């Protein structure tokens, strides 16, 4: 790893953190440095252990093994109310019997701050999260989904924690509002300069907001990197498929100098050796649908496959074609302006260059 341009100190450090429930291993040996002020997103399918990881960071669960340090001090057993961190729950966990203002003021109230200061702080925070001042006395259960989200954010910021954790707070919100809130959250991160650790099952969400992304699978942290690294240099097939719909071809190394041979589709291919392990002789070639193109007469590509178009979908600005190649279905995406008037059941040739494909170890 090369040194970052402005090396910042890790605020949170995980060393060999492991969590088991009876026989079940929820989180397996995780090492991670969280840099001060970054927006780190942990993604993974449900059951991958990301929520358990977050609960340990927030202090609601204790690791079975390993250490969590904050500013270099071990905090494994420090209870949540003694940590300078705050968690925004998936359910938001707003107190239904308290008004918007009382919810936001709660952390100040329990710290003995007087009513006047509390109210001033609450109103200030409501401005930050763009809630009208009149909402201060509104019943929190009468707020809309987006408004509740903002109340939860304001409440989390109220006592100025150093690190904020988010447990999929946007999962129950409709698409359009989600897009707005994602950007607002990113803005808020910039304005406050605090460290945000966010977990979600949606890589799309992670890509929009994060400085770095960690991908979890079955309790392990598979890869940590910038969104660009995750997208273009996935370490294995799981990460590459997690990013979105991809075409995966299984290949075996041929004789010295000869091209690689396809296993699940016939043919020989030009393949870049896997980044992680140049000596590997068994690999997956991952080609994103937008890097695959139809070859007309006179068009050339390093690799090509013959197949039959049998379906097309409109994806808004792009169009996706399903092409049957033997037993396999390949996906090709073209921007709408370049769409071809291809009728179903037409024979086509699809092609790609080795440089556009990613190779990962099998």
């Amino acid at each position: 790893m090369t040194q970052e341009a402005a090396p910042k100190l890790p605020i949170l450090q995980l060393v060999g953190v492991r969590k088991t429930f009876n026989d079940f291993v929820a989180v397996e040996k995780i090492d991670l440095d969280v840099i001060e002020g970054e927006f780190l997103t942990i993604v993974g399918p449900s059951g991958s252990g990301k929520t358990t990881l977050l609960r340990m960071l927030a202090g609601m669960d204790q690791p079975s093994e390993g250490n969590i340090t904050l500013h270099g001090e071990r905090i494994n057993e420090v209870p949540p109310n003694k940590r300078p961190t705050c968690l925004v729950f998936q359910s938001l966990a707003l107190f239904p019997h308290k008004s918007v203002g009382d919810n936001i003021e709660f952390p100040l109230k329990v710290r003995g701050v007087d009513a006047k200061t509390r109210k001033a702080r609450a109103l200030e925070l409501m401005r930050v999260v763009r809630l009208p001042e009149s909402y201060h006395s509104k019943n929190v259960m009468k707020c809309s989904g987006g408004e509740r989200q903002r109340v939860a954010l304001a409440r989390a910021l109220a006592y100025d924690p150093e690190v904020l954790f988010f447990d999929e707070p946007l999962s129950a919100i409709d698409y359009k509002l989600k897009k707005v809130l994602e950007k607002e959250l990113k803005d808020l991160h910039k304005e406050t300069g605090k460290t945000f650790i966010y977990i979600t099952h949606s890589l799309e969400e992670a890509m929009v907001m994060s400085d770095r992304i960690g991908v979890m699978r079955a309790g392990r942290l598979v890869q940590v990197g910038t969104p660009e690294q995750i997208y273009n240099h996935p370490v294995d097939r799981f990460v590459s498929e997690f990013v979105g719909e991809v075409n995966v071809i299984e290949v075996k190394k041929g004789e010295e100098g000869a091209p690689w041979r396809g296993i699940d589709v016939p043919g020989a291919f030009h393949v870049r050796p896997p980044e992680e392990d140049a000596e590997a002789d068994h690999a997956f070639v991952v080609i994103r649908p937008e890097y695959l193109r139809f070859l007309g007469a006179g068009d050339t590509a390093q690799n090509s496959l013959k197949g039959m178009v049998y379906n097309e979908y409109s994806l808004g600005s792009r169009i996706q074609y399903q092409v049957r190649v033997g037993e396999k279905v390949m996906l090709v995406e073209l921007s709408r302006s370049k769409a071809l008037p291809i009728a179903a059941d037409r024979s086509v040739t699809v092609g790609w260059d080795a440089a556009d494909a990613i190779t990962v170890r099998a």
Partner: protein
Amino acid sequence: MAQTSLSHPAAPVSLEAAPALPTKRDALLSLGARCSLPVIVLLAVGFVAPLIAIFAYSFAKPRTFEVFRSFTLVNYAEIFNVNNTVWLSFLWSLGFAFATCALLAVIAYPIAYGLNRVFGKWSSLVSILFVFPLFVSENVRLYGWVLFFIKNGVLDGTLKMLGFEGGPQVLYQPPMILAGMLYVYLPFMLFPMTLGLAMVPRDLIDAARDLGANRWQIWREVELPLAMPGILIGMLLTFVLGIGAVAEAKILGGQSVIVISHDIFIGALTLAVFSRLDLDRLLGRR
């Protein structure tokens, strides 16, 4: 409908079956109302009518059952007589009910908390242990206490065996009546309270702790207010049952205190409390 130009010879069945739902809705009473009818009829005949009968009897001559032939306000005049002992016994029963209610809240709270948070897989067994006595006739259970405290009973006998004076004669004294009421009404406080505490989402407690609240603050600011509907129902139940504690008074108290029942008072109180609670949320948790 009949003159529709579109014909669907292939699907005549669906045309007939489809309106089944809407037409039923158009019936004289809604489905819900019809389902409620048996219960309504039962309660009208078995609950409302007898109460009206009692009301009518209150106008009859004392110690007679001639309701419609005689009309008198003697009974009411009697109640407003300052020297009447009814007032004294009313105060007694109110005091007992208050004490029962308050003490039971304190006794039951740790158990209700335990059922929700501490006992884990044992909690169903523990709740069965508390439900079961409800099914044993209360006079059988109270008689067990009599056997315990009676002269030469379990307590007295044990103390004598150990060389002490012998047990105190507490039977038929007011504190014993209170103990009897606590004993009989414990489940009525415990279960609504458990239900109420179960309604406090785990997330909210975690969140409060995360936001910096200590245990006392969590309890006062989050747990107690959210569990209040259940606790209120428990208190109401025990208070109301306490006022009507005739069986206990007769067995444990002999004739020393006559605890009378005050039906209108009870009905009004119950309705007043329930008009402020959302039963759907309390029972259905949604």
